[in-house]
């Protein structure tokens, strides 16, 4: 029983990091209908950028904020350089562009930072684990959880309250109507990329702190796809809950089903679960069942 609780709790903690990356998928999909196949690479770039700042001697919180700012700028630039001219083109073409971006970014990361695993040195978080009621958690998990939740709350506030957050949601709902009110669709797309870069970058950084950083952190992008689909692709709260659910699911399947197999259950479980849910709820858990009334 205690083991179960421990698995669930640490699953929630890792899941909150997945939620950040899932939010990146969602915000771009929601605003522009594009599935951004370069999501994993955004994660990678953010993590390496943060690592670089940290190695330059910035305290970690400062490095993290600097990563957010860098992510914001990189998002705007990426949108401007690669996606702006594709506005209005078929969605599939745009998705192919993001596939191309994925390879491009990966190559850039390999070129700039190499392919060896690197770790944050000195370690960012204290090494000795904390104990609650007999359960043991690494401090890196607790801090990552706190950082992820804080950032998620900021994003949720941004979408529900701020001028540009509402403009983004409005564009997602009805682009023409938003345009008629003077909302700039170009800025909305650019902001979506900026936010995706920021969220993914922090997600990658936190994960890099836990496992060390190499090119495989980029697989996080695909790993959270089930979380996004579970959440319903265009729901921000859905992405968050989906991300956390995937974290828990991975932990449970790893411990309870893993020993019965040759391994790999942890990686497959989210996808199996996703297919199961989609069979029952094709729109995902929180997806838009179209609101229609006349």
């Amino acid at each position, binding site marked *: 029983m205690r083991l179960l609780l421990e698995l669930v709790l640490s699953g929630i903690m890792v899941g909150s990091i997945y939620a950040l990356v899932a939010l990146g998928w969602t915000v771009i999909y929601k605003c522009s209908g594009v599935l951004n196949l370069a999501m994993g690479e955004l994660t990678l770039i953010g993590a390496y950028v943060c690592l670089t700042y940290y190695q330059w001697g910035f305290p970690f919180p400062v490095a993290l904020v600097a990563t957010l700012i860098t992510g914001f700028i990189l998002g705007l630039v990426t949108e401007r350089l690669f996606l702006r001219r594709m506005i209005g083109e078929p969605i599939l073409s745009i998705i192919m562009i993001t596939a191309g971006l994925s390879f491009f970014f990966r190559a850039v990361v390999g070129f700039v930072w190499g392919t060896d695993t690197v770790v944050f040195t000195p370690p960012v978080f204290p090494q000795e684990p904390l104990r609650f009621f007999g359960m043991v958690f690494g401090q890196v998990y607790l801090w990552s959880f706190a950082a992820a939740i804080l950032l998620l709350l900021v994003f949720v506030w941004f979408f529900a309250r701020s001028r540009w957050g509402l403009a983004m*949601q409005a564009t997602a709902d009805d*682009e023409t*109507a938003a*345009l*008629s*009110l*003077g*909302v700039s669709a170009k800025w909305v797309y650019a902001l979506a990329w900026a936010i995706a870069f920021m969220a993914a970058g922090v997600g990658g950084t936190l994960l890099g702190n836990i496992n060390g950083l190499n090119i495989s952190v980029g697989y996080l992008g695909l790993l959270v796809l089930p979380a996004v689909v579970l959440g319903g692709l265009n729901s921000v709260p859905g992405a968050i809950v989906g991300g956390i659910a995937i974290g828990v699911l991975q932990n449970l399947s790893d411990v309870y089903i893993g020993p019965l197999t040759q391994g790999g259950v942890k990686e497959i479980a989210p996808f199996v679960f996703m297919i199961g849910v989609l069979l029952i709820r094709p729109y995902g858990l929180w997806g*838009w069942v179209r*609101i229609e009334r006349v």
Partner: protein
Amino acid sequence: MLKVNNIEVLYHEVILALKGVSLDVPSQGIVALLGANGAGKSTTLKAISGLLKHENGRVTEGSIEFLGERIDRSSAEEIARLGIIQVIEGRRVFPHLTIEQNLKVGGHLRKNGGDISAGLEMVYQYFPRLKDRRGVAAGFASGGEQQMLVIGRALMARPKLLLLDEPSMGLAPLLIKEIFEIVTQLNRQERIPILLVEQNAKLALSVAQYAYVLETGRVVMDGESAKLRENPDIRDFYLGLTDLGTRKSFRSIKHYKRRKRWVS
């Protein structure tokens, strides 16, 4: 205030939707644009607001001037910034946002918070029902509430010219009356000039001072509302028994009537 000079509009570079439309909207009052389905009323509004460009449409001939400035090449965003706000036909609310959030998006161009709350206050004064329902997702609001919402949302943008596309569509007569009364009030009290597109000619002529009649992409008649109301062709075709939805053309009626006059 707004001058549309003999514009021609092409969709997808092949479909000719307007074949020379001219109209004037003075800086006060309400001008009505009447016509049957497919006459080109919405296309005219979209040409003015710039939304046409997002439907692969283009003004190929003629020009549009607003406050002396040429706007037919400007983007929808620039035109909205100049103060021309179009209320698109079909009650296009943002369904997943609440009523109040919808209104806030309307205030997107007002940058500071105090301004937005003043705007909300004003809209709620004209549409108290929106205030009661402000926390409801707009997709779940009733048809009448949604129509009020899209008008209120446009008000939030502080329009210098309001383009209203068929506000009566699909609403019960009592609601239509209520909404038209508010529209008239907005025009008088807030001094917002309005270009009103309607299929319901009787209604439109009762609030507008001047009207244009559009048919298959051309203005076939225009004049003071009072005069148009007395015009026998308008009486027959727009105000009489025949509804606007019928496929019979206004011109063919005219010809038919002329022939009849000759015969008798």
